[in-house]
């Protein structure tokens, strides 16, 4: 009899398995290390050593709080929330504002600028310079930048962003709309058309 290929365990199953055998936690680390490294870099943790420290704190906190994981959420939303909080704590500890890093590469920027999810009348020029947008993203309010990063660079759904940032879904839409508006104001209006 032909055996069906076994699907890898879901994150939620791994959480349950980790609570019985901690070695399974390594699988969760493997799954999320790259994603979270990229995410915290976008939030402003740039130095490799700092990233390792923050990641260790994120995973340690995740491990300690496994029993508090709300199964009605996606595990990814939960660990992103922890990552977000740890990154924020990190730059508060360092007393710095996240700055001067590349949030996204040119392809991501182009994809972000062509996103038509917000409103039909907001049409961006695709020939924009990626560096220009990166610089502009540094200049907008933290709360707008966080939502924009999660939506357009981490490709999270509204509900997931709501769970990660602990804000109502309606506020996610509002912040995105305002964020894009502020971004457009910061960007040279001659280069970008809204």
């Amino acid at each position, binding site marked *: 009899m032909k055996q069906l290929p076994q699907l890898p365990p879901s994150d939620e199953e791994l959480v349950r398995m980790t*609570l019985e055998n*901690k070695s399974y*936690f*390594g699988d969760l*680390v*493997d799954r999320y*290390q*790259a994603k979270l490294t990229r995410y915290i870099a976008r939030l402003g943790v740039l130095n*490799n050593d700092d990233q*390792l420290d923050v*990641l*260790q704190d994120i*995973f*340690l906190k995740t*491990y*300690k*709080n*496994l*029993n*508090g994981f*709300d199964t*009605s959420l996606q595990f990814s939303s939960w660990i992103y929330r922890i990552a977000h909080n740890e990154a924020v704590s990190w730059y508060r500890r360092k007393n710095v504002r996240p700055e001067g890093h590349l949030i996204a590469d040119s392809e991501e920027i182009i994809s972000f600028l062509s996103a038509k999810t917000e409103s039909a009348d907001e049409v961006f020029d695709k020939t924009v310079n990626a560096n220009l947008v990166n610089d502009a993203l540094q200049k907008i309010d933290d709360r707008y930048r966080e939502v924009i990063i999660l939506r357009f660079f981490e490709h999270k759904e509204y509900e997931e962003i*709501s769970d990660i940032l*602990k*804000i*109502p*879904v*309606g*506020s996610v839409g509002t912040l995105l709309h305002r964020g894009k508006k502020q971004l457009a104001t910061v960007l040279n209006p001659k280069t970008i058309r809204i």
Partner: protein
Amino acid sequence: MNSTEQKTPQKSLKSSLFERIDSENVCPHSRFLFQGRECFVWFLWTISIVVGAFAVAVSLFVVSHHHYALYEATHDNFFTFIIDVLPYLWFVIFGLMVYVAVFNIRHTKHGYRYSVSTILLSSLFLSLFGGSTLQFFGFGYVVDDALGRHMKMYGSQEKLEHEMWQSSGQGRLLGKQVYVSVLPSKIVVFEDVSGQRWTLDVSELNERDLQLLASNEKVRLLGTTTNSKLHNFHACGAFPWMMGRNISPARMNEERKEFIVKMNEIAKEAIERPNFSDEPTSVSNLQPVQSKCSRLAVVRRMP
């Protein structure tokens, strides 16, 4: 970046993480800790809603049971009366409880999913609905009265009414008739709530007032102190002491109407009443003179 370079930091992170978990003996926190925290937050929320509801109940009781019917007797106008009698403490408590409720809901597992306005409005609604229900069953009075009895600092509605009506200098007394003689002359002795006895001049009281005085119930007297050393008081009106859980707004309205009629009578009598003195009749003392009651400030304040 090649695959070897990519794997090295991952491996080092995982191994250093497990090293730390082992060396620091890190274990996942107990499930009960999270459940307990969640329960505690909901418990605080429940407490805040209940206390908020009681604040609403007492506020409703205080606001609806203040003696608006007779406000001209104690204050210059309705505005100064309202400013004096509003239950600020309970308003503050209510506001604080709504804040605590909103704060706690926001800190429950899924509290962040609701907007502040939704949480605020639902907390307000729950407290207002709960408070109205409690007041419907008379709990506003019960709480206010109990706090007034057991806490010296707390100014209950009853204490406030006492303060407003036990003021002989301003022509207001609160107490009971304790003695009355008809012959050879009518003497009425009235004991106020501080235990002071007064000799009342009841010549200007109407039948209803006299019946009220004779009822042996606590009454409010409106008049003027004619001799503060001898404790003589000229009574112009008697009004029932209305305190308790069963005083309806309709009863208050009735009292208001009676008060207005009474004050109008006094004002009318002021120009009709002759001066009955023992002095020989003269042109001057046959002229209409003002009664003592007509000189009361409250008569001038009446609309």
